[in-house]
């Protein structure tokens, strides 16, 4: 058996009631078509999805964990950005 692995792909599935695709995991495949088929077999065995996206893991550019302070911490003290200071009229109900 070849020691060389097929490329890794990230899999995104949209569930029946879901509005957007959600990351569910990753898998190996030789090309995009096989990646979709493998995703169907690995991640949709129990009717989890109605749509599949795959993207090569190497194509994902991620944020740097070392920069998480400057990227994310700064939002923490800006609570006014959360719409929690408004009175919601009763007739609107749960938002």
């Amino acid at each position: 058996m070849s020691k060389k692995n097929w490329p890794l792909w990230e899999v995104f599935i949209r569930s029946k009631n879901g509005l957007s695709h959600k990351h569910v995991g990753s898998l190996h495949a030789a090309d995009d078509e096989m990646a979709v088929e493998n995703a169907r077999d690995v991640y949709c065995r129990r009717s989890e999805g109605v749509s599949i996206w795959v993207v090569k893991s190497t194509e994902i550019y991620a944020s740097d964990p070392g920069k998480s302070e400057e990227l994310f911490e700064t939002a923490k003290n800006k609570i006014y950005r959360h719409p929690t200071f408004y009175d919601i009229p009763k007739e609107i109900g749960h938002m």
Partner: protein
Amino acid sequence: MTKEEALFEYLVRIGDNSLILGHRMSEWCGHGPILEQDIALINIALDHIGQAKNWLALACEVEAKGRTEDDLAYHRDGFDFRNFLLVEQPNGHWGETLIRGFLFDTWNYYFTKTLTKSTNQQVADIATKSLKEISYHKNFSCDWIVRLGDGTEESHNKIQDALNRMWMYSGELFAMDEVDSILWKEGIGVDLSEIKKEWDVTINETLEEATLIRPADGWMQKGGKTGVHTEHLGYILAEMQFLPRAYPDAKW
């Protein structure tokens, strides 16, 4: 042979093809070349076992002797099995499994598609339910034949070799006998010479895309449909039937 006897025989043949191929595919569990394909094969195996259950249950209903699909699967001997010789052939390497699947799945697709128009409503219903799965099996097999045939020199040679060796089991898929004729005339079954034309088109197109050479039709092995099997079936049954035979009271 009465119409009921012929229908029972016909249903057992369809069910046995699914059962034996399903068992063969299940032997790949934990041995696939890569995790993703291991799971793909097991999904296909489970599709086949599910279809076998439906066909054999209907066969029992037609027979009306109080037997169940489990009785047929686990308490018959080799000479009572009616599957094609093709589907009982050993898995061999990945390419051999795929060639066996390619030849059978393509046949099964056109066969089942025709059965969806059967005058027997129960037959048509099971065929309709199965066709989506079988359509996936056919595409899975055809894709892989192209990948391996049009892949590296080694994969090309291996798959061509597997095709050459497996070809002699393809003739039986289209041999009409008394059972086939009775059911075809009743509008329940399939005219195998009709689906041979469709099978030829798909096989030829796929082989061409895969840069593989279709073997010449030589001596064709046959016998499975009438219970004359290759030596491989006995080993399958020994493994598949061991538990219910050793522990007859075992429950799921």
